[in-house]
């Protein structure tokens, strides 16, 4: 056991930060061809018209990693991965809305 203590400044993975293709590949430990393939099939949606202008958000790192795992573990092809990720994201957002609405209803009816 070697407990280490440091104060760390974290990065929030948001939609705003932009990485170019090379930076994105380094962050994901992935080769460019793989990333290009994912963009072509809609798994990743960088801003920018062509490869040289592509800007990936930090959030898409999570999406890349999820895509890797889903494809490897569930043997889904990339178009299927893209669909799964979109559906998972919309389920997550709906679940948030449902929780928020349920809580509002609870407070309106319980009123305590």
């Amino acid at each position, binding site marked *: 056991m070697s407990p280490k203590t440091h104060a760390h400044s974290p*990065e929030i993975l948001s939609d705003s930060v932009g990485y170019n293709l090379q930076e994105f590949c380094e962050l994901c*430990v992935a080769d460019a061809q793989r990333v290009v393939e994912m963009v072509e099939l809609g798994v990743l949606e960088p801003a920018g018209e062509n490869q040289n202008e592509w800007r990936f958000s930090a959030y898409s790192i999570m999406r890349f990693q999820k895509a890797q795992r889903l494809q490897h573990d569930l043997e889904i092809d990339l178009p299927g991965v893209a669909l799964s990720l979109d559906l998972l994201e919309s389920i997550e957002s709906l679940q*948030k809305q449902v929780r928020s609405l349920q809580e509002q209803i609870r407070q309106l009816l319980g009123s305590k």
Partner: protein
Amino acid sequence: MKFVDYYKIMGVEEDASAEDIKKAYRRLARKYHPDVSKESNAEAKFKELGEAYEVLKDPEKRTEYDELRRYGGVAGEEFTPPPGWQPHAGSRGGFTDADAAHFSDFFETLFGNSRHGSHYSTASRGSTFAMRGEDIHYRIPVSLEESYDGATRNISLHTHRLDQRGQAVPDIKTLTIKIPKGVTDGQKIRLRGQGGSGIGGAPDGDLYLEVELTPHRHFIAENRDITLILPISPWEAALGATVQVPTLSGLVNLTIPANAKAGQKLRLKGKGLPGKPAGDQYVVLQIVIPEVKSDADRALFKDMQEKMTFNPRTRLGV
């Protein structure tokens, strides 16, 4: 070590065909995949399943496992392999598709060597062995107040490091983490290089934190917006009023317009969680009818009943 019943885990019979086993694996993998399932034990279940499939899909390993099972293995009970037992399947020294880093002691003893690395990694496995440290994922509960003000938190992470003999041993890492202002539910935070240690000069993995906003007594958060249900009296609703309303930054005065309706939504701009742009606070009006407790109370309502023309059911056409 405890005996692990792979047939039970996969929900198949002992005489299941290779095709049945594959089908069962695919069905359960979809169900328990940690990226898909929201169940809290999904990750453990998924690992267990991967281990079971690793053995049952391989005819040689399966034959060996069946021998051991006949030798007296019962799920969850102490198990010692028969004296002189050696695996024949040749799994030692060779890498299989699945990463065995997280397999059980039972599996390790019977079928393979422990290997270090990320569960999902398919990094290079050459003679000069180098592997990036594992990424660690961790959920971190954060209250709304902590998100609003920012906070500092100590967390202990369970990870692995290599000892002098190159064996992966468990390690505990303590980190002090600044929770940035305005984090929202489900948001991911990355700490570069704070995951598992890399091997052979490869970089360390990253630490990913997923924020889990804990429910608040009054405020309901959705992304950066906050909703507050505000109870008001019938006369405040009818006549309009200025009332004090709690926000994350303290009490503010809110003007309720005359003839306000139940469920009406008022907005306090920028009073949600901080950010670019900051969220808003929505105030949803709830009209609370006072309980009639005395003759005087009853007289007031009677008076309204007699003097006001009001049909609350016009929408229903009755």
